[in-house]
């Protein structure tokens, strides 16, 4: 029944109304005297060095995401079986064993082909690059000051 969702809708409407009302009130009632310090972004007391906009993630993240999606979604077939596994009995168990065996084959392949190695050397290359870039920026900022 749609009626059952009425409380949820009411709550959501209330929340939105409260937020809008309090922001409008502070805009209208409070004093507004901007200066550069107040307008600057606040990051733990430091000047933000650079904006993360447009930065690229290392390709490694995509590989991990890809593998995660695939192996994660495979569990979807375990749920219906888990719900009815007593009624399915041995037949269901054998089916599932075959299924998991197949997933395991894929896992062995990924493992042996190096899909799970994060990076050669110490630590992820992308993190090292990001750190180097940040340090360079810090140095520049210090010199400028």
């Amino acid at each position, binding site marked *: 029944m749609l009626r059952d969702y009425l409380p949820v809708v009411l709550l959501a409407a209330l929340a939105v109304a409260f937020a809008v009302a309090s922001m409008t009130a502070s805009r209208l009632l409070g004093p507004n005297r901007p200066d550069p310090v107040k307008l600057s972004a606040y990051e733990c007391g430091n000047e933000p060095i650079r904006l993360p906009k447009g930065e690229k993630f290392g390709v490694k993240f995509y590989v991990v995401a890809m593998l995660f999606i695939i192996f994660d979604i495979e569990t979807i077939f375990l749920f219906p079986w888990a719900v*009815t596994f007593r009624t*399915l*009995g041995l037949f269901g168990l054998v089916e599932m064993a075959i299924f998991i065996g197949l997933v395991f*084959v894929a896992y062995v*392949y990924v493992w042996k*082909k190096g899909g799970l190695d994060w990076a050669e050397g110490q630590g992820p290359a992308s993190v090292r690059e990001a750190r180097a870039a940040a340090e360079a920026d810090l140095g520049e900022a210090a010199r400028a000051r």
Partner: protein
Amino acid sequence: MLPTPKLDFLPVLPELILAGAGIVTLLYEALAPRASRATHLGLSLVGLAAAAGASIALWDRTGDPTVLAGAIQADRLAVVARVIIISVAAVGLLLGTHYYDRSGDERRGEFYPLVLFATTGMTLIVAAADLIVVFLALEILSLSLYVLTGMSRRGQATEASMKYFLLGAFASAFFLYGVAMAYGATGTTKIAGIAHALAGQTGGQALALVALGFLAIGFGFKVSAVPFHMWTPDVYQGAPTPVTAFMAAATKVAAFGALIRVLDVSFQPLAWDWMPVIWALAAASVVVGSVLAIAQSDVKRMLAYSSIAHAGFVLTGLTAANQDGIRAALFYLIAYAMMTLGSFGVVMLVSVRGEERTSLASYSGLGRRQPLLAGLMALFMLSLAGIPPTAGFIAKVGVFGAAIRAGHWQLALVGVVSSVAAAFFYLRVVVLMYMQEPQGEEQEEDRSPLPRLALAVPAILTLVLGVFPQMLLGVLDKASVLRW
């Protein structure tokens, strides 16, 4: 306890063997430190041979037309289509082994499991008796082919793979939407069940018609019928040539196998509604494919457009919506698979290392440089053009005859006129090979025997089916009876 479903795995034994072979080669590639192409090839060919044997053993099977809770069809159409697909895969593997041996590329051991998985999907889709299985099989074969398309260092291959993937996934979504609509209209996803439900309904078939439309879009993409053909030239050109050979020949057989079931079983009660749609697709494919092929200067692109035209010819046969049409379409598919496989095989051997020589100009004077290859190419070109005494001629006569007997003589006329136009660009290749001087400096020629041996299969079949078509027609008479 639920009753354990009655399990008869024999009708899916070919698929189980193929998938098993795929897994074995995959593990071999992963676990053997120095996996060799020869071992890969051996393992794969054993798997293919066993699967072919298991398919042929199903020919005389009696009993339930469907098994595994109505998921798999055990009829002779499935047997014939499987045997064609498996043979194409075997030749494709031989060509591919040679290709990667020559290209000096990385090992590319994944070629073998991927071809085997794609073959599994293709044989499964022609035996599917449930739209869920059709969808799963379609995805198995498509996903494998997307990766296979990109299996080369050339940037073109990656790009082709990307295009194929995006458009293929797009088409799959349309197909799936159609399946959902068919389920909504009839309450079942079983191919035969849909037919029963539709036959029982009177009026109010809007949902079923929507379903039919979306399914037509999905299949149109897979068989590359106009106007869903845009990906074909790019993908066929960009993919490694042995992959193109396998894909062009086998995918069409598989997709048409499933299309025949969906049209002539599920939607048989609505035959008068889908006939004009298929009619229009057929006419557009035949005309557009033939005309655009004339303008191509790259052999692979030219063959891609020609494959679009051939999809139109098969659809011409299907407009008959009866056993006559199915038989003609099956014969056409077999002939098409053989001549396409063969011509792409020759293209691969002519282009030596990598993909340098796929322009039409590199065929000038081939008759003098490489008489055997030129002879094979001439045979396949004549067959594609539909000139007797080749399989292509008999196949064309078959589909046009079926269309005319069903009252679609206008479509047959369009087909004949287009064939005449198409003969121009096929014969141009023959003229180039035999009547022109070789151009450019002498280049290294590829003279290895193994791929030539592999090409003997399609060449012999193209000739034999052209001269003695009765041999196959008797078999197809029995195979084109759909049991459900």
